[in-house]
């Protein structure tokens, strides 16, 4: 059972335009959501997070939006740069002893110069 879903395996965007990556979840107990970025042969690196008490969090070119009623979140990158080309993973957790993250399958973003 895939609790965190990223339905788009890949996305191609022109440099300077907006990239929108989407993520859906099924577990209503999730209360914290994160985005990670992964380059080939490297481990994932943390990008941005959002708590379920918020509906938006912004950090520079990156903004995450959370729609709890739809169990949907999205990552917006504006403006997109070629260096943003990577695999983006959405992850979720619920407060508890483990604090483990449940990851989606990732979206490969290609930003064309």
């Amino acid at each position, binding site marked *: 059972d895939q609790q965190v879903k990223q339905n788009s395996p890949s996305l191609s965007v022109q440099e300077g335009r907006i990239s929108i990556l989407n993520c859906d979840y099924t577990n209503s107990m999730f209360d914290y959501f994160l985005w990670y970025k992964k380059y080939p042969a490297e481990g994932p690196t943390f990008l941005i997070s959002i708590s379920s008490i918020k509906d938006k969090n912004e950090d520079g070119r990156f903004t995450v939006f959370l729609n709890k009623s739809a169990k949907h979140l999205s990552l917006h990158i504006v403006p997109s740069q070629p260096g943003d080309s990577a695999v983006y993973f959405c992850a979720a957790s619920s407060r508890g002893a483990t604090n483990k*993250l449940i*990851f989606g399958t990732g979206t490969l973003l290609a930003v064309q110069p």
Partner: protein
Amino acid sequence: GAGVSQSPSNKVTEKGKDVELRCDPISGHTALYWYRQSLGQGLEFLIYFQGNSAPDKSGLPSDRFSAERTGGSVSTLTIQRTQQEDSAVYLCASSTPRDRDYGYTFGSGTRLTVV
């Protein structure tokens, strides 16, 4: 060290052999996680260590998989009698209990190939 260190970076083994994968977390990080990423898949949780608490082993796929963490620092993931479906990138991550805002710090992973 400055980051999470994993060794080896690559491992090719014959089916049926045992392998050990090592993780050195960031100094002072009390939580340590193992994940794996199979081809075309997301990151799959395997096991979690937090301080002296009993580990959360709920993600281990079979009893051929085990992990230990010695002295609250270095961790070893052992896979016995490896199978071809064990081929994946095994990722280790560490964090502090208050790292919820920043997530984990991952190592670069060990790419395991079972032939």
